[in-house]
């Protein structure tokens, strides 16, 4: 197992290098002068030269990349051009809403998606199955920002039950925090549950396997068969899909924060577009890709734990 994790970690290095190179390339290898892109077309030559020096654009490309990548290793993401503080510091300031939103919606997604997928697979063609399948079709069709607007319209504007947006920290006002986070977590969580469909089809695959028939014929009850034999085997392909939906979680969090006006990292990134605060955007994109790589690694490790064949295979 340790060997597997080690080998998998090694394969991460070239991908991370490439990820850093792409992030760097978005600013440096795209057409047009980056200082004009940031300052606008009316900027004076002096302003542009100043920015060029601040961003290190006056040095050679290789040197720039090495400086920047070296900074990354020391967790130095540069200075925010607008906030005038180190990017890492700005990120930390906006981290709480994003981290909590991610955790809550992941919990919602797993609590809804896994049982929905398993039940509709075990009781195929039943009422719950048809309901769940209909829901996944709707989830794939309705974008989460439109769903967000609809629930605000219903629960906040019509019924006046919950706030229309804004973040409340749990340390200041716990009840207010819960009220503020119910809608965004539910919307983002529900929008991730389309993996229920994949869980359902892997449950169906396992249900028709011979060893499940054997389990039935040796006299096990249905719950016993489902829990002991079906779930464990169906979990293997499901883990991958749940891991992939983590990428959707990161992208979805940006949009959800925007809809519900939560002052998180996503909101910071969107505001940074208008401010042309490039170092912040660069860091945000880089960190999300890094996080995604780590989650993929975690998925592979869980996969190997669940399925010994992966561990010893090549």
């Amino acid at each position, binding site marked *: 197992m340790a060997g597997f994790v080690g080998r998998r970690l090694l394969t991460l290095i*070239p991908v991370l290098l490439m990820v850093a190179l792409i*992030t760097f390339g978005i600013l440096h290898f795209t057409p047009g002068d980056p200082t004009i892109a940031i300052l606008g077309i009316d900027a004076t030559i002096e302003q542009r030269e100043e920015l060029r020096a601040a961003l290190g654009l006056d040095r050679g490309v290789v040197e720039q990349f090495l400086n920047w990548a070296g900074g990354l290793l020391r967790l130095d993401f540069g200075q925010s051009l607008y906030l005038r503080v180190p990017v890492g510091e700005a990120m930390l300031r906006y981290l709480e809403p994003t981290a909590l939103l991610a955790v809550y919606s992941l919990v919602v997604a797993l609590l809804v998606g896994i049982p929905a997928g398993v039940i509709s697979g075990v009781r195929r063609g039943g009422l719950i199955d048809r309901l769940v399948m209909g829901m996944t079709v709707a989830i*794939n069709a309705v974008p989460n920002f439109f769903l967000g607007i609809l629930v605000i319209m219903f629960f906040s504007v019509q019924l006046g039950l919950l706030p229309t947006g804004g973040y409340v920290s749990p340390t200041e006002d716990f009840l207010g925090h819960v009220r503020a986070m119910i809608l965004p977590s539910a919307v983002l969580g529900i929008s991730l549950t389309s993996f229920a469909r994949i869980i359902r089809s892997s449950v*169906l695959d396992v249900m028709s396997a011979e060893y499940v028939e054997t389990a039935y014929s040796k006299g096990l009850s249905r719950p016993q068969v489902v829990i002991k034999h079906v779930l464990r085997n169906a979990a293997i392909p499901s883990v991958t899909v749940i891991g992939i939906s983590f990428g959707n979680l990161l*992208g979805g969090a940006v949009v959800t924060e925007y809809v519900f006006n939560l002052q998180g990292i996503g909101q910071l990134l969107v505001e940074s*577009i208008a401010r042309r605060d490039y170092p912040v955007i660069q860091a945000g*994109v880089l960190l999300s890709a890094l996080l995604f790589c780590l989650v993929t690694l975690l998925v592979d490790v869980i996969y190997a734990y669940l399925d010994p064949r992966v561990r010893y295979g090549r």
Partner: protein
Amino acid sequence: MAVDLTSAGVPEPDTHDLVRPRARLRAGWVGSFRASTRGMIGLGLLALIVLACLVGPVLSAHDPQVVDPVARLAPPSGSHWLGTDQFGRDVLTRMLDGGRASLLVAAAVTTISVVIGAFLGLISAMYAKVDGPVMRFLDALMAFPSVLLAIALMARLGPSIGNVIAALSLVAIPGFARLVRSSALVVKSTPYMELARVLDLRLPTLMVRYLLANSMSPLILAATFGAASVILAEAALSFLGAGLPTSVPTWGSMLNDGQTYLRNAWWLAVAPGAILSLLLLSLNMIGDALRDAFDPRSERI
């Protein structure tokens, strides 16, 4: 010992025969797609939306850009079927006009990313030397959450329709490339590719005619779902203010306006949101029906 078949008097085999079994199969999937209620409803819905967006703004009595201060935030009525926005502009006309932008971006991005993706996938499958670097690069691109990568590109490139198309194409290419590469690798090892090689067909011909012809069905399927995610991504970018210029009506920017006036004008957000959802629904229905048609075993699981 190599035998020259042509000079030995053996008639040159009709190379078209090699593709024919596939053609028969294709007729099969068209038939089973037609038999699918879900697929036909999806196709009908898509056709309706496309037609409405193309013809609607021309037939409409209103101009999507003309401001009417007297009719600000007017609810749906006989003269404004879906009401008006905060500047008194007709929501229905703007919605259909916004659809044009959405459909144009979707068509352009899907075409560009399928063509470039297929090209990268094919050369990776054919030439081992390119395979490693190209695939590592695409793996890294796929590590970025697509909305975030598009945001970063748009922040750098600035708002314009060409830049939206470029940014979303870059996001979409890796998926198509990997898909074509993997089906091309399967096809490459089949006996009839060996035969084609023995017949000494030129390499580019080989690649395009046989590999691509056989990657066709997964590619059509992926393009259908791909078009849906492009439409979703474009709407998200415009919603966040990182998409098309704000002077152009788009569903995303209309939704953004709609959220501002949620309390007094619900139609402002519901109209663009509903047509966006219906368009995504139609593409998903077509995709599901195609999946069943290409792989009859997966039907009704």
